[in-house]
């Protein structure tokens, strides 16, 4: 307590309550009035603590909002008609991310590598290196994806060839609807979702292709397949 408040406290000793009090207590600030004010002060602290909690809940909720959002943000986007993708080639294709804000500008455009193995067999790779997310480039002559950052290299089927990546390229789920190649995209591909389905067979052995309206056996087999580790989105 600062001195002026002490002075005031002693001034108040003149009021009726304190005149009834015994002499030693009058000299002592620990009077009935003081303890009442101290109690009220503690009560006010408690009240402010409660207000703080009331405020903190929405603030923390606001802050954690992006993390709380469900992965349902992913959806199917078209990459173009099948005729855009010659068999045996790997091409760079841009798409607009399904979730963007009006001020995202060009950052909302995402590239990916589309590999048409043959017929309706496709692989769609994320642009991001599985090491640290840098953009990998396809070299058709040596049939390698190379990363400019730390030299990660991948084979044509996306499997790891050399360098620091621990695994192959991330792959998007894809399907063919009415002659259009579609992929399921949403969040930026990264290593975090790999752990959720570790131990699944690598996609590269049997591409995950759903062909609607063509032969039920193939469609059924791909529907039964759980979303594999490589598939992002």
């Amino acid at each position, binding site marked *: 307590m600062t001195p002026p408040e002490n002075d005031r406290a002693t001034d108040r000793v003149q009021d009726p309550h304190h005149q009834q009090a015994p002499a030693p207590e009058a000299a002592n600030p620990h009077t009935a009035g003081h303890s009442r004010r101290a109690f009220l002060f503690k009560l006010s602290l408690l009240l402010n603590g409660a207000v703080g909690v009331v405020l903190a809940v929405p603030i923390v909720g606001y802050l954690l909002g992006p993390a709380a959002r469900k992965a349902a943000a992913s959806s199917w986007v078209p990459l173009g008609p099948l005729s855009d993708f010659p068999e045996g080639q790997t091409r760079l294709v841009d798409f607009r991310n399904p*979730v*963007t804000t009006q001020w995202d*500008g060009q950052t909302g455009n995402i*590239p990916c590598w589309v590999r048409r193995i043959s017929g309706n067999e496709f692989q769609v790779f994320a642009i991001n290196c599985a090491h*640290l997310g840098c953009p990998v480039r396809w070299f058709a002559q040596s049939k*390698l994806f190379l990363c400019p950052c730390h030299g990660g290299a991948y084979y044509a089927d996306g499997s790891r*060839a050399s360098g620091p990546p621990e695994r192959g390229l991330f792959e998007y789920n894809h399907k063919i609807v009415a002659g259009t190649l579609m992929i399921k995209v949403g969040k930026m591909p*990264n290593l975090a979702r790999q*752990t959720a389905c570790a131990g699944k067979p690598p996609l590269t052995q049997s591409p995950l292709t759903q062909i609607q309206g063509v032969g039920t056996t193939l469609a059924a087999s791909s529907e039964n397949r759980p979303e594999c580790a490589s598939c992002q989105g």
Partner: protein
Amino acid sequence: MPGLKQRSIALYNWFEHRLGLGAPAIESAVHPVPASTSSWWYVFGSAATVILVLQVVTGILLGLVYTPSANQAWASLEFLNHSVQLGWFLRALHGWGSDFMIAIVLIHMAQVFFFGAYKFPRELTWIVGVLLLLLTLGMAFTGQVLRFDQDAYWGLGIGASILSRVPYIGQRLVDLMLGGPIIAGPTLTRFFALHVFIIPGLLLAFVGVHLWMVLRLGINEWPMPGRIVTRTAYARDYQDLTHETGIPFVPDAAWKDAIFAAAIMLAIVACALFFGPFGPTGQPDPTIIQTAPKPDFAFLWIYAVLAYLPPALETPVLFIAPTVIILGLLLLPLVAGEGEKHWSRRPVAVLMVAVIAVTLGVFTRLGMYVPWSPVMNAWTSDPIPPAYLHNRTPLERQGAIVFQNKQCRNCHSVGGEGGLRGPALDSIASRMTEDQIIRQVLQGGGNMPAYGNSLNPSETTALVRFLTTLRGNDLAPAIDASRHMAITGRLPGASSDGH
């Protein structure tokens, strides 16, 4: 003009009567410090503070124009560079100020460590200083993001990829960092808030605490071998020293701080004038993938370490090493709070600083020329030296074309040009036999991809024939010792004449 002087004093007194800040400020300015602290070694802390002021001022000025929108940020930087009068200079000052600040903060830290200044009673000053270092690096990283160009975009990708490796909550952390599903508008705005409000606020508050403790505990005296710090005697010793050799900080010691700060400011201005602002590099358009992203100078060493870590060690090292380093720095004064201060009696401390400095220097240097990165355009831009084609058979020349066409150059140099990821091939045939070369090309291994699927037999033959001609300055070709023995029944070199 006695009238003016009197009026000025009256004005000062008018304010001082109401504010009461002048007297304590003067008192702390002229407080006595040990004469030994008036040294050119004691100028780095104040210089860092002065640069911080420069950064705040230039930062606010840039804020007059900068637009923290993913769609517009890059354009607003270009606008600052080219269309705002002296906008380029303000950007250059802010960018160079940031590099100088990190450098001065690190030098300050090394000096404090060398002089044992973190020991009793200044442990907390050191701990707050460690937090200030982390905040300074935080400012550097978030500032690099605000320079919203290709490097910033992919730098965010690297940051998100690192965070995604955190066990269990990796995806949540990535979501929090990006503020949305991808690197986009919400990512930039949260880094803007960090760079402009949150980290500077913390930085200024901690600088205040740091300075307050320097004033309260006194500037560390010049260490002497054998003058041991103990919790019981230090305060009295320091008091005696100040009493015996004390000089007023202002002006007797502070003039060196002031001159050094001015020199540093001039150096920043000179760098800004001569070298100009940093970037922005290409637009933050992820569909432009012809880019080799690189972090700013202060983080190059991390970029290099990430290239050299074995894949299996990467995730543990990424999270355990920083924790250990930061905890070690924070706990240092609590563990070694007493004892010798002088560097001549602390060989381990000196060795540590030397090793750390050399390590950081080496990795930064490596980060500058990225030997681990393939040179993405080497196969089309770097020619084969004519000497390597001279007097070669058509098949061998065909092999040179295969060599070029299959992008071998991106990782292997020939004639000093090409990638440094794999070994230079100028004398490969003196190290590997034809069989070994064939095996290496087709199956890969030792960090080289297998080319079995991208080379047909005739290409392989031609390529290997070309490679077998590369023997440097006509070194002897590599031979298979076992084959020699199988054919002749003798050890190679063990000829009949005894040699």
